[in-house]
């Protein structure tokens, strides 16, 4: 119960806390509605485009792709870091090779301009 069970219990409690924050206003707040109160704000004029979820810069998409690459690499390195003292030189060389290949990908992305903030 000190381990994952306790964590699971905490997940339930945390989700309950989040839900409480989300719905309490529906219960406690005033119910009278104003005809324009839910109109999306945009500089105080009628909306030019009522749908806000349009296109967005593809730079965000590229950064998202890079995250997948590097975050998974970092996840692979976690177990290596834990057992590093036991596997010695073999582990060191393996990891340096791994990080070297990772760096190659990084340099490629940099040279291609994927890291540049695109306007």
């Amino acid at each position, binding site marked *: 119960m000190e381990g994952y069970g306790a964590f699971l219990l*905490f997940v339930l409690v945390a989700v309950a806390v989040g839900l409480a924050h*989300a719905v309490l206003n529906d219960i406690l707040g005033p119910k009278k509605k104003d005809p324009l109160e839910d*109109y999306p704000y945009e500089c105080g004029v009628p909306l030019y485009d009522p749908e806000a979820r349009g296109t967005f810069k593809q730079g965000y998409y590229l950064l998202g792709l890079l*995250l997948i690459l590097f975050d998974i690499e970092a996840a692979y390195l976690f177990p290596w870091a*834990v057992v590093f003292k036991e596997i*010695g030189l073999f582990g060191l060389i393996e990891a340096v090779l791994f990080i070297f290949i990772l760096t190659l990908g990084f340099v490629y992305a940099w040279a291609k301009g994927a890291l540049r903030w695109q306007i």
Partner: protein
Amino acid sequence: MLVDVVVTLVKIGVLLGLVLGVGAYLTWLERKLAGHIQARLGPNVVGPFGLLQPIADGIKLLTKESIIPRGADVPVYYLAVVLALAPAVLLFAVIPFGPGFELFGREIKPLIADVNIALLLVFAMGSLLVYGTIFSGWASNSKYAFIGSLRKAAVIIAYEVVLGFTVLGVVLLAGTLSTVGIVQAQVERGVWFVFYQPVAFILYLFCMLAESGRVPFDIQEAEAELVTGYHVEYGGMRFGAFPLAEWYLNVMALSAIAVVLFFGGWSGPNILGPLSPYFWFLAKMFGLVFFVLWLHWTLPRFQARDVTEIAWKIMLPLALANLVLTAVFLYLFGGE
């Protein structure tokens, strides 16, 4: 078994009460601090020294009308609040506030989940926070919220990567992912890991500021242009949940993790008897929290392009170099 469940529930209750209460009072501290930094008084009307201000704010937020913007994606709109708050609270599950102690013949550890993958859980929860941001920006049907959420997602994912590689240096030294194990490794050596990993600590500090949307990396909620970004269409306690999670809970949790990783957790001279580990842990943690608040009201902010380019082009190579050098030194000198 039943006793275990009760003990865990009591621990969760104590932790939640402390975390949410202190989180609420950090709003008072921040406003007071900001006031004095800017040569004002800060809140001073509600109660002595304005001390009842967070309670007044909470009651006000709770009794506000529930407004959902036109064209919003309603289920996602609600889900975003849960996904913003729950992972921020869950970050505290693996933080050891002190060593285990005996109570009525049972060993009680002052942390909720003593698991051996504690740091991985921290990263999992840190990544889940992105969903709260993205969902809130997407569901609100507002251009400010949408742009703010995209910016914040770009910032969080960039610094999440750096954070992962930064922490690996400490994991190499300690040889474990368990937060208790990392603190014990520092207690046994008698030295804090910040002295072995100064570069990692500085990178961690920057990542902490970026992840919790603090100055100088707060472009995603730039008040002047995006009117605080992704949660602009939220009202009442739903609005309260986002800054609470992001600015206060996240900062506290990441400061506590920093104390565990770099500042020896609860270690320190015995000055208060059995309470002294808790005192030291909280003193270090709130020292860092204070530092973050101080920065917030002192520095200007970076542009969006600077924020992402600093992460990818400067901090990531530094973190990788730090990791490789740590591994090489550890192999050559055996970690001493």
